Every structure is written in structure tokens, then in C-alpha cells.
């Protein structure tokens, strides 16, 4: 097996380092690392190195800074570095030490230095426990770079077997945790031991500053190499009670590329052998009480996802549409809502959002993370506080019913790892009254719409007041009103008819001829009055040019009604007469039977005519 090319560069570096060590200024020799234990975790594609250091000040002066050195090749992959210091021998509460990049004079340019500022200067003879966590990305390289579906993925990791430090190190060890499985090869030095899935170097004693001996381990790692090329995380605050989060992922498998064919049957029948290097799902740990979760991409919803939730967390397992083999990529979007009160708080007149920065997806490396915080429309005095350096910008987003747009805070950071899921804050001022603006706008809009409808219905919009069609319309309106009046009159007539009928009914029951006659007289008078009322209406209707259709019907109606009246009257008088003559009921029936039928038929005709007219 060929040696990976980067090794040669490392070898060159070592040469340089030796030179550098010889010429290193002696001023830094005041500090001595009495013990250095490094634990390298290689189980995933993100390399975490925890270095426990015991530092002693052997010089005369108090020292307030501790230098950490990394070769440039490693430093450029450094995603996070954190140092915790504990003074004294007892493991007390540790403190986070601020770290910055420094460029001390007289050091070789192949090294990058970080300086941890101690909380208080280290006095002479005192010791300090220092835990340094460093996280590297892109440090595990697949080798070979292309594999078939059935092969498992082999990767290479390079580091120094000895702790690279500007200070002399008395005792040191290095232990590397491997994910298990096959180990192809590793650099053997004295005191090297491979047990189970742990590779141990050391202990080595009394090494001068800048000692470096390259080591390489070539091992099997089939854990998902999930690398997000870009993640856009949009956090939208709505003061109606929701924080909506939308995350767009562009994920690729960063491991060895698949070569040759992808066979579904192999993958399907033995997924852990044929397709061992691929991954089919990712797990996102969402905050508790996350709701309305969705998972989709540009072409629609993706139905393969699972959700578990309890009071502590919401766990979402998203499965891309297809398993990701080396070199394959996919994009998707996750969205969810969070309760507002869990993430937005008040502090002296200002509100602030307090939420984690990184992505909720586990063990993912994000090469470029863009966090956008969309504040409600009308937010002012925006302040951002992020625990690490980011590129900050502001823009404006237009969403539903926005006029001036919502202010958006854009934070951009390269190489984001799970360690960056720290809380950050966005402070802003927002007046609660602005909340009501959008509903009010809607209400006003609809109100105006209805008003416009009413106005349109009630106003005369015609342009010319003497165009034939306009005149015709006016006349038609007149005709209609006349017809309505006529209808009212006929309705009264019919009511009078009914009264007459009831009077007859009364008569047959009580035999009160007098009241019956009175009813008839009243009806007579009413008929006359109605006829008088009807006359002018009829003449005006006849004269109108628009009534040509309806006029014959009205005429017919009038005639029929008059006939009906007559018939009713005669029948009424016949009944009353025969009642006075004390005729038998049977005879009365016989006498009026014919009339009765006629009346009924007429009545029906009148009614149908009325109906016909009313329909026009």
C-alpha cells in the first residue's frame, strides 16, 4: 500500500521543527509541562483531541500566558479550541480560559500559536492543570479515495506521536480511540501498543520543546461522513407565540467515493455488508416542545422520517430519499416551530432571543453555516452577541403583509461542528402594538372592499344620462316598482276574498246573516277603493314603453280578478239569499256548486298570474 502523499510534507516539517527547536528563544523555557496526556477520538470524521497538561512554572517570574502550538497543516483544520484551567493540585472548579492567536517572535512560520491567558499569573513553583480540547475537521482522509459498494471505507489520520509544545515535556502519553474494526497499519515507535480499538503511544519522557515525530494510522471507519456544504438556518420570530426555524441542508458523504455500480439488491439484502460505508439517516435533536415539524426538499415532502419526543428533547430521524454513498449528495429542508416563551425573553426594556447557533443534526460538519434571524417587522436597536467570531450582516425580508420588511440579522461562520451549538443572543426592541398592525390592515382591507361593493351597488355609475339603454333601465325600474304596487293591491284583493269566504263560513256556523252582510258591504267598499287605486297605476304602466312584455299579463290579471270578484259576490249573495229563505243545506250546495268550481279555478288562475308577474 502506497503512503499517502501528505506524509512527505510532514517529514519536511519535522526537519524544520528541529531547526526551530535549536534556535528557539529560551525565554519560554520557564514553564515546564510535567505531564501531557493526549486522547484522540477518531470514531467519527470530526477529530476531537483532549490534552490534559500539568504545567509548572520553574522560572523566577510569574507567567500569565500559556502557548499552544500546532503545525499549520493541522491549524487550518482546527474548528474549535477550548482550554480549561484548574490551579493547584486538587481538581477544583475549572475555568474557561480565553484563547487567541499569537505570533511570537522567532518561531518558525510553519507553526501556528495560540495563547491561553491564565486567569491569574502562575507564580513560581506553582502548578496548573490545563485541559485543552481541540476539534479538527477534514483531518481524516479516505484512502483509497474510491471504493466499491461492498468495500468498507479506510481512512488515514496523521498526527505527531509526541506532544508538540514550545515547552519541555517531562512525561507524555498519547492514546487514540479508533472506531473498531480493521486497522490496516500504524506507525510503530517504541512503546506503541494496539489493544482492542485503542492505539497507545508512550509514555515518553523528557522531551525537548518542539519534539515532533509523525505518526499515521490507517484504519477502517464506516461512520457517516456527513458533511454539509452549506446550511442556511432561518429563525423567524413571531410575537404571536412562535419561533419558526427553517433549515436548508446541502449534505454530502465526504468519505471515499463510490466507484462502479450501485446495486439495490446487494444493498437491500445485506445492507451492513454491501453498503457499509454509506449512511441512510441522520438524527437531529430538536429542542423540546418543537411542533409542526416538516421535512421536504425542492420537489416535495419526504415521507421517510421518524419522530420521538419527550419532555427533554424532540428527536427527529431524517432519512434522505436515497442512501448516501461516498461522493453522493442531497439537499433537504427541515422546519419546525418552537414556543416563543422558551427562547425570547425580556431584559430591561429590550427583548432578546436566546437560541443555539449550530445545527441540531448530530455529528455533522458544516462547511458554511448561515444563520438568519428574522425579527418581527418594526424591531429596532438590534444587538448581537455571539460567543465566537462570525461575519455579520443585516438584510430585509418581505413576508406576508409586510410593508417595510422584517429586519434580518445574518451570521455566517465556516466549519461549524457540534461544539458550536452554543447559545447566542440577539437583542432588539419591539413594540407590542405593532403586532396588531397586520390584522388591522386585513380588517381595513376587507372593510374597504365591502364598502366599495355597497357603494357600487347603490350609486348610479352610468356615464350618459340620456343614452337609450340608460333610459330603458330607468323605465324598467319604474315598471318594476309599479308592478310591485299592483301586486300589493292584488294581494289585498285576495285577502278581501278570503274574508268573504270566512264570513260565509261563519254564517253556516252561527247563522248570523247580519254580520255576513256587513262583511260583504265592507268588502265591496274595499274593492272599490282598490280599483280606484289601481287605475292610475295601470294607465302609467300602459304608457310605459318597457312594459310591452308584461302588460298583456297584467291586463289579463285585472280581467280575471274582476271576474273572480263578480263570481264571489254572486255566490255570496246566493248563499245569503238561500240562507234567508231557509233552504236546506243540500240545495244550497247544489245551487252554488257550479259557481264554486268556477271560483276555485279563477282563483288558481289569478294566483298563477300573480306569480308569473312576480317572477319578472
Amino acid at each position, binding site marked *: 500500500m502506497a503512503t499517502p502523499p501528505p506524509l512527505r510534507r510532514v517529514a519536511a516539517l519535522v526537519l524544520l521543527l528541529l531547526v526551530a527547536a535549536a534556535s528557539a528563544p529560551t525565554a519560554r523555557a520557564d514553564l515546564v509541562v510535567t505531564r501531557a496526556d493526549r486522547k484522540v477520538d477518531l470514531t467519527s470524521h470530526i477529530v476531537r483531541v483532549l490534552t490534559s497538561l500539568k504545567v509548572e512554572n520553574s522560572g523566577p517570574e510569574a507567567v500569565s500566558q500559556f502557548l499552544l502550538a500546532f503545525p499549520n497543516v493541522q491549524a487550518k483544520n482546527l474548528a474549535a479550541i477550548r482550554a480549561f484551567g484548574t490551579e493547584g493540585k486538587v481538581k477544583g472548579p475549572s475555568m474557561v480560559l480565553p484563547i487567541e492567536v499569537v505570533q511570537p517572535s522567532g518561531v518558525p512560520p510553519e507553526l501556528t500559536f495560540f495563547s491561553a491567558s491564565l486567569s491569574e499569573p502562575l507564580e513560581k513553583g506553582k502548578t496548573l492543570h490545563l485541559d485543552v480540547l481541540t476539534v479538527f475537521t477534514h483531518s481524516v482522509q479516505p484512502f483509497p479515495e474510491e471504493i466499491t459498494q461492498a468495500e468498507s471505507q479506510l481512512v488515514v489520520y496523521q498526527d505527531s506521536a509526541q506532544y508538540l509544545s514550545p515547552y519541555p515535556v517531562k512525561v507524555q502519553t498519547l492514546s487514540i480511540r479508533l472506531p473498531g474494526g480493521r486497522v490496516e497499519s500504524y506507525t510503530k515507535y517504541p512503546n506503541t501498543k494496539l489493544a482492542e480499538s485503542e492505539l497507545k503511544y508512550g509514555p515518553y519522557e523528557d522531551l525537548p520543546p518542539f519534539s515532533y515525530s509523525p505518526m499515521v494510522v490507517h484504519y477502517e471507519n464506516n461512520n457517516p461522513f456527513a458533511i454539509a456544504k452549506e446550511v442556511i438556518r432561518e429563525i423567524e420570530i413571531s410575537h404571536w407565540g412562535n419561533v419558526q426555524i427553517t433549515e436548508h441542508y446541502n449534505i454530502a458523504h465526504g468519505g471515499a467515493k463510490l466507484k462502479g455500480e450501485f446495486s*439495490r439488491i446487494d444493498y437491500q439484502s445485506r445492507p451492513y455488508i454491501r453498503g457499509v460505508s454509506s449512511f441512510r439517516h441522520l438524527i437531529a435533536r430538536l429542542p423540546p416542545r418543537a411542533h409542526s415539524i416538516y421535512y421536504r426538499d425542492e*420537489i*416535495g415532502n419526504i415521507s421517510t422520517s421518524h419522530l420521538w419526543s419527550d419532555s427533554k428533547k424532540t428527536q427527529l430521524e431524517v432519512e434522505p430519499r436515497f442512501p448516501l454513498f461516498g461522493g453522493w*449528495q442531497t439537499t433537504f429542508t427541515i422546519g419546525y416551530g418552537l414556543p416563543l416563551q422558551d427562547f425570547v425573553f425580556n431584559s430591561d426594556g429590550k427583548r432578546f432571543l436566546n437560541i443555539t447557533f449550530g445545527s441540531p443534526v448530530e455529528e455533522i460538519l458544516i462547511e458554511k453555516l448561515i444563520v438568519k434571524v428574522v425579527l418581527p417587522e418594526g424591531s429596532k436597536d438590534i444587538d448581537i452577541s455571539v460567543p465566537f467570531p462570525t461575519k455579520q450582516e443585516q438584510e430585509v425580508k418581505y413576508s406576508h403583509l409586510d410593508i417595510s420588511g422584517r429586519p434580518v440579522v445574518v451570521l455566517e461562520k465556516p466549519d461549524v461542528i457540534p461544539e458550536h451549538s452554543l447559545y447566542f443572543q440577539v437583542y432588539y426592541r419591539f413594540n407590542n402594538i405593532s403586532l396588531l398592525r397586520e390584522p388591522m390592515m386585513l380588517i381595513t382591507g376587507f372593510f374597504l372592499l365591502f364598502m366599495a361593493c355597497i357603494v357600487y351597488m347603490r350609486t348610479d355609475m352610468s356615464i350618459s344620462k340620456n343614452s337609450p339603454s340608460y333610459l330603458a333601465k330607468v323605465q324598467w325600474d319604474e315598471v318594476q316598482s309599479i308592478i310591485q304596487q299592483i301586486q300589493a293591491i292584488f294581494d289585498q284583493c285576495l285577502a278581501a276574498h278570503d274574508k268573504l269566504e270566512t264570513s260565509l263560513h261563519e254564517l253556516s256556523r252561527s247563522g248570523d246573516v247580519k254580520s255576513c252582510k256587513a262583511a260583504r258591504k265592507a268588502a265591496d267598499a274595499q274593492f272599490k277603493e282598490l280599483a280606484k287605486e289601481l287605475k292610475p297605476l295601470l294607465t302609467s304602466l300602459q304608457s310605459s314603453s318597457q312594459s310591452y312584455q308584461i302588460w298583456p299579463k297584467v291586463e289579463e290579471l285585472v280581467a280575471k280578478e274582476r271576474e273572480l270578484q263578480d263570481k264571489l259576490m254572486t255566490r255570496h249573495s246566493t248563499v245569503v239569499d238561500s240562507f234567508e229563505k231557509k233552504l236546506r243545506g243540500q240545495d244550497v250546495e247544489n245551487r252554488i256548486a257550479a259557481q264554486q268550481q268556477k271560483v276555485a279555478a279563477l282563483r288558481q288562475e289569478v294566483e298563477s298570474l300573480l306569480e308569473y308577474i312576480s317572477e319578472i
Partner: protein
Amino acid sequence: MAAATALDSLPAPLRSLRLKTKQQELLLRVSALALIYVLAFVVRLFSVLRYESMIHEFDPYFNYRTTLFLSDHGFSEFWNWFDFESWYPLGRVVGGTLFPGLMVTAALLHRLLRALSLAVHIREVCVLTAPFFAANTTLVAYAFGREIWDSGAGLVAAALIAVCPGYISRSVAGSYDNEGVAIFALLLTFYLFVRAVNTGSLAWSLASAFGYFYMVSAWGGYVFIINLLPLYVLVLLVTGRYSQRLYVAYNSTYVLGMLLAMQIRFVGFQHVQSGEHMAAMGVFFLLQVFFFLDWVKYLLNDAKLFKSFLRITLTCVITVGTLALGIGTASGYISPWTGRFYSLLDPTYAKDHIPIIASVSEHQPTAWSSFMFDFHILLFLFPAGLYFCFKRLSDATIFIVMYGLTSMYFAGVMVRLILVAAPAVCLISAIAASATIKNLTTLIRTKSKSPQTVSGKSSGSKAAAKGAVDQSLPFQQNVAIALLLGAFYLLSRYAVHCTWVTSEAYSSPSIVLAARGHNGGRVIFDDYREAYYWLRQNTPSDAKIMSWWDYGYQITAMGNRTVIVDNNTWNNTHIATVGRAMSSYEDEAYEIMQSLDVNYVLVVFGGVTGYSSDDINKFLWMVRIGGGVFPVIKEPDYLVNGEYRVDKGAAPKMLNCLMYKLCYYRFGELTTEYGKPPGYDRVRGVEIGNKDIKLEYLEEAFTTSNWIVRIYKVKPPKNRS
């Protein structure tokens, strides 16, 4: 609908409140219409609820893609768009080969919503365009019904068409196709034209012409309008119903409509150059001659003289007309009827002459069951409505009768044209339903009143006093009530049926397949999108995909990759080339694929899941279409005794052609069903005949989780030694 009819039958005491009842009636009518409007929209959302807000089927994906382009790049770029992603290496002049009505509508709606500061995605607009227009169609149906019968019939028509399955099938949310807006445009044009004929108003004719313009811009079915209108005019002329109103309406609609239609690039000068549009022009000239003769007759005022004049004029006109038509056809100025037009008139034409039309399932003749499925009780109400129409014959009812009868014929010829018949069937049925219910309620009402009129008698002599009307038809009232209940029962069954059909049959996007699992749960097969998304993400952006044309639009829209052929079947030879490649041996196919620069081949295979509309079942059409152009491909080579089979007894050419190999590659190792041998094809129900398939020039690139879509990579040519 019942509310309106019930209103007319208000009891007598309410008569005095006439004005108020009028207003109430208006209120009821408007609210009923509003409810119908909402119902029409809501019933079409089943697909969104059951699946998701997505574009359905095949053609809508093209429409969606073009709409996206339109809203991104603006109209003039859209108009001049040359699409490199389809019909490789020919490309397609998209702007000149589509009906832009739908895309422009959706883009305008989107812009309008944006202007109202509603931040909606264009996809949502596209998904909801069809339901929105279906809801608008109900309004048009109401107006149309009122125009031809009365407002009651209008309301019933609106209600019927709101849920009519024949219409819903093409207008559910997500079916973003031309038909979605075209049926609205069609009905609107017809309504405005009838209105113009009824009023003789220039304004309505103008409106009708614009309606026609919209229809032309939206759908190729406008040919139906341009042939139905002259036919209608001709019938009116023959039946002696010619009037000035008709003259004004037809001439202005035709001339203006024609001029407007020429603005659509895809239609161009067809109105004066194509045989399909000649009927309209002929009737246009006929109307002029008719008018002229009318005028001469009036001037001459002499029957004998006029007769001789008539003879001379008619001979002249007919000679000139035939001559013009003959010369036009002979010189090629007037194009002959297209195959599609022939296949409409003659159901057997496509089968014999144009396999590419016959291969589409929605172009098959309609089965009785699907008539029943799509129309339900309307199928019985339709003849009843025709009876009512003939009973009260007017210009408007003649129109609807003609529309109904012709569209019913076309619906019988092609399944998809049930859609065109649906509005006519709904309107005519609405007339039947409304008129029947109205008659029945009138009967019941008069009966309920009669005791009142008779009550003037002394109680002892009641029996004798019963009216003569009453005695003539015993139990009339009871029968009327029973009939009314029956009608309501039928109508409610219709509503139930429509809802069921919509939710069960017509709401599937056909991209996502759903099936019932063993435990009753729903199993989703999302293989199409899985494959398309894989293409989109994991192939080079200039990769060319070869597949059968059915999947072309989807691949370009969802996979964003170049295809060789797609659903716009404009170049038969190109499709035949793909068909030939699919039905050749691998090495021959490889040469064809090399010449077409194909990088990937995509096949659809249902053998694992039992998905029956896969490429093996479509394969004979590929053979036929390929063989139609390249006689090397012979259909009998793929059949055994005229039988199409894939098992051991299959034809050797079948067992070794590219399509067979790609579908069944390594399928022989898979056990699909318990108790069956490996390689058991669940669609065909047989064990496949060739289990040992080796691919030489292709390699499996991706197969979806249920094997429905299989993608193969074409290997680069070997180094020449």
C-alpha cells in the same frame, strides 16, 4: 338549489311581505352560490390533504417548469425560450409550441398575490389554480343556467358542476394542466356567446370573442368551440331561427376571436389556413350571403324574380366556395385535417394510423363504467333535460342541446373528453332536476291550499264539494311528495358518490403511490421522486437521460436533466429512435445511445411492487412506434403466437432486448413473494424467463427502494487499441 325553488313556494301569509321575500331570495341565492363556490374549491383539496401540495402526473410538470421560468425571467424571455433540456439534440422552441394561457394565468395570480404582500410560493399558486378556476366555473355555470332556463336551474347547474367527478378528475389541487383553466374558458365563451345571441348586443359578442381568445391561449380544445359555433349557427339557419341578433353575435365573435387567436404563436394563422377551422369561415361567408339575400328579397318584393336571383347567387357562391377550398387544399395553403382531428371523428382511426396517440390511455374510447363513474345520476337526468329543452325550445336551449350531444359523442370517443362533456351534462341535467322539482313543489303547494278554498262549506257536505281537479288525479299530493323525496335521495346519492370518487380515485398525484400495507396502514411508494432527486443531485448537470417519453417532463422538471424525448410528442421519429433503442439488443442499442449522447437510461419497473403501468407493459407500444419508422423492428419478433409474455416461453428477441435486460437486471436473484421462486414478476404473475442477465455496455447506477425506477449508466466507449 332546493332553497331557491322552495322560495317560490312561500305560503300565502308571507305574500304581504313581498319585497322582503325578494330580498331574502336574493340573499339565499347569493349565499347558496357562495357556498357552492367554496364547496367546489374545497372538494378539490382532497389530494392536498391525503398527500401534499404537489404537482400531479406528467404534463403538469412541464407547465410548472414553464411557469417557474415565466415568473423568473419575464414574459418576453418566456416567449422566446429555446429549451435545450428536452428533445436532445433538437431542443424545443417552447414559446412557440405551447398554449401560454395557463402559465400566464398562474404567473399573474402569483404576481397579484405578491402585490397584496402575500409571500406565497409559485408552486402553491400552481397547485391551487385548477380548483380556483373550477370554483369560477360554477359561477359561469350559474349564469349560463340562468340564461338558458332560470335562476333555479342555474343554481342546480352550479351545484352539480361543483362536484361532478368528470370535471373533478382534471381539476383537483395539483393537477396543473391546461384543462383546469380551459373548461372555465370554454363555458365562459359559450355563455357569453349565447348571451350575445339572446341580446344581439355587440358588447356581449365582444366579451365572447375575448373569452374565446382566452380559451385559445389555454388549450387546443378551442377547436371544439370554433366548430360548434358555426354548427349551431347553421342549425339555427336551417330551422328558420335566423335573426339580426345571431348575425351580430356570430360575425363579431368570429372575426374578432379569429384576429385575437392569431396572436397566440402556437395557433398562428391556422384560423385561415387549416382545414379544421374552415367550417367557421364557411359559415361566416354563408351568413353574409344569407343576409344579402334577405336584403335583396326585401328590395325585390317579387317571389318569382327573387327565386331566379337566388338560383344564380347560390350557384355562384357554391362554385366560388368549392373552387377556393379546392385550390387552397391543392396548393397546400389550407392544410388538411390532422390525425388528432380524424381520431376524434372516427374512434378507430388512431389505432390504425397513429400509434403514438393510441398508446396514451386517456385517448382510449370510453367504457360505460367510466361514464357511470364520472356522471352518476346525471346520465339519467341528461335525457330528461333534453326533453325539457325540446319542450321549451329557444335559441339558448338549442345551443345547450347541441353542445350536449356533440360533446357526449366526443366523450364516447376519448376518455379525456368526458371533461368537455361534463359542463353540458351538468347544465342539461340541472334543467331536468330544477324543472322537475319545481313542478312537484308547485303541485304540492296548490294541493295544500285547496282545503282552504273548500273549507267554506258546511262540514256535512265536504265530500261532494271536493274540487274536480282533485278527483282527476288521486293521491297526486302523496305521489308528488314521494317523487320529491326520491329526487332528493338521488341528488344526495350523487353528492355522496362524487365525494367518494374524488377522495378515492381522483386525488392521487400518481407520482406518489399509496397502497395498503399488511397491517392496514398506508404504505407510500415515493420511488419516482427518489429517482428524480437522485438524478438531480448525483449526475453531472449536463447528463442526458434516455427514457420512454412518458417520463420526459418529470425528469426535466424534477430531475433537472436533459432528456431525449418527452411528453410533447412533436417528433415521432425521435420517439421511434428511442423505441428502437429500447427494443434492440444491447450492442445495437449502445450505438444508438452513443449517437444520441445518452449518459443514463431510466426505466420504470413494477415487478417488485406490482405497479402495473410500467415499461414492460408499455413495451409493445415502443415496439410499434419504433417499428412504424424503422422497419427493422418487427412486432411479431417480440410475441409468441401473438401472445406477449416475459417468462421462459417468451420470444428470444424479447428476452434479450435492452428494455427486458434493464428491467430484469439481477431481478432473478430477488424473492418478491413468499412461496414463489426468485424472479417472480408480480405484475405479470410469472417467473421471468431470463434470470442471468449480463450487461456489457451499461451498469446499474441507481435503483429505487422499491425497484420502481431503475437508472443505468452508459459506460464510456472502450479505449481504441
